[in-house]
């Protein structure tokens, strides 16, 4: 990791300080936003969606109906940036183990021993789905390990742009692993945009070529169980990661390891090992603390309002503001 240049470090620390200092500012803004929110809340009830707020309260260039959202954005992004700044300040970073990610090396090693290929499925959505972007970044880390082990990594894609992005990432991974010559573009190929055409091709290939390790990282819909069950029938180690809540039950039931929602997004930071990226994972935890505090405060207010009716107004508006 390159030596942090002092002026850039000072700049980053300043940005983090601004965001962290923003919190008292936000509480004041929240109070001011209160009547703006309630005014717009009534407007929203009968007018069109909140995006077209009633012009009276919208200052020319800012849409006040979305002020609570802006405040939340500043707080959450501030937490992530603060996490990164924390990592840069050199303090020791403690992050818990993720079983699925420890298994990545074991799975690729097993494939190399058995002389069988590694299959990586980056999901069936396009690059406009953040899960696909996260899947391609995890592909970068898996491809680097595969390059080091000299294992054959196959990446069938369901979208042309995902194929282009995957080729970029795998080529970059081969460079970082110091083996640019082993990069073979034809291992990353497009099949079809159709959900079940892609599934038919990939499951057919699984049964014929019997890869020893299968990775499913990205956005999946009904086909998750088709991949997992066919992967299991050929005895492959299967590591899945998705943020599609409806598919997690099938991956958890049928795969060996599963990265659930947030774990999937933290995976590429974990695998990179870079301090900045691990800092952003700690930033996610900071965001969780904020949300847990907001929930506890809201519940306390709401419960108190049951016994002390006068608090009902405050409880309701807190819930409304948080709701954005």
């Amino acid at each position, binding site marked *: 990791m390159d030596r942090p240049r002092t002026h850039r470090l000072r700049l980053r620390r300043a940005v983090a300080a601004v965001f962290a200092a923003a919190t008292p500012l936000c509480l004041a803004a929240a109070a001011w936003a209160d009547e703006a929110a309630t005014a717009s809340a009534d407007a929203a009830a009968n007018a069109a969606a909140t995006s077209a707020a009633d012009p009276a309260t919208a200052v020319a260039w800012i849409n006040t109906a979305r002020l609570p959202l802006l405040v939340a954005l500043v707080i959450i992004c501030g937490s992530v940036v603060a996490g990164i700044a924390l990592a840069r300040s050199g303090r020791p970073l403690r992050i818990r183990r993720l079983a699925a990610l420890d298994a990545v090396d074991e799975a690729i090693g097993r494939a190399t021993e058995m002389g069988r290929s590694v299959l990586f499925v980056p999901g069936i959505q396009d690059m406009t789905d953040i899960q696909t972007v996260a899947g391609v970044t995890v592909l970068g880390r898996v491809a680097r390990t595969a390059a080091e082990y000299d294992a054959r990594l196959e990446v069938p894609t369901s979208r042309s742009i995902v194929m282009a992005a995957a080729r970029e990432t795998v080529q*970059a991974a081969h460079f970082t692993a110091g083996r640019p010559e082993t990069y073979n573009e034809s291992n990353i190929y497009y099949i079809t945009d159709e959900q079940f055409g892609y599934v038919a091709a990939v499951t057919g290939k699984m049964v014929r070529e019997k890869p020893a390790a299968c990775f499913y990282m990205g956005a999946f819909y009904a086909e998750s169980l088709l991949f997992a069950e066919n992967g299991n029938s050929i005895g492959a180690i299967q590591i899945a990661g998705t943020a599609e809540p409806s598919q997690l039950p099938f991956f*958890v039931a049928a795969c060996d390891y599963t990265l659930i929602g947030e774990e999937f997004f933290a995976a590429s930071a974990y695998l990179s090992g870079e301090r900045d990226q691990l800092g952003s994972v700690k930033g996610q935890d900071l965001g969780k603390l904020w949300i847990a505090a907001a929930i506890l405060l809201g519940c306390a207010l709401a419960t108190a309002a049951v016994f002390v009716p006068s608090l009902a107004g405050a409880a309701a508006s807190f819930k409304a503001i948080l709701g954005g």
Partner: protein
Amino acid sequence: MLQRTVPIAILGLSGVILMLAYFSPLTTSWGETVLEWFNILAAVAFVLGAGNLLAVNLEKISSRRPGWAYAAITLLSFFLMLGFGLLKVGAVPNPQHPGVHLAGNYETADSPFGWIYEYVFSPLTATMFAMLAFYVASAAFRAFRAKNTESILLLGTAFVILLAQTAAGMFLTGWIPEDSAFAFLRLDWMKVAITEHIQTAGMRAITIGIALGVVATSLRLILGIDKSYLSKG
């Protein structure tokens, strides 16, 4: 410079602009315009996909690798469907503009494109989708085994929900009067309690976690910390 700093700048700039565009009424629609641009980009990029599909299959045919005949079938059906679609062969003429051939409707079952969709494409996709019924059964046998508390909870809940969804569930516990103290033992009450209180809580926490993950992933990309997409990274 051109291959590293410019892409990082493009990514960071477009990310910040679209983040802020959502907050001012003047620029709210920028998000939709960019997504519309993306659809055009994706349609143009089809050439990449088609090019790769042809390269892979033609290579298989020319090198006579085992299974080359299937590559021939793929190419045959690809060109057939592409030709029927792009040239709108046999399309039903548009009532308002009978003269303009390319304005016709090519998706009804009377035109070859529509016929292939109706009798080849949709039965194949519908049957692939229906295969899930078989795999749900094999997953139930293989994966729902009580090895530790977690898997006991997993299979126990699935067991209750499956029972509650059939007449057998009502048959087994339908006789418990609804107002009695043991009403919670009724399978349909258990199903409502599980889905309404526990499943919603679990799904809510997962969604909150995912939102935080999306924020962190997006910021890592916009701030240029995660550069895995850049070759010679």
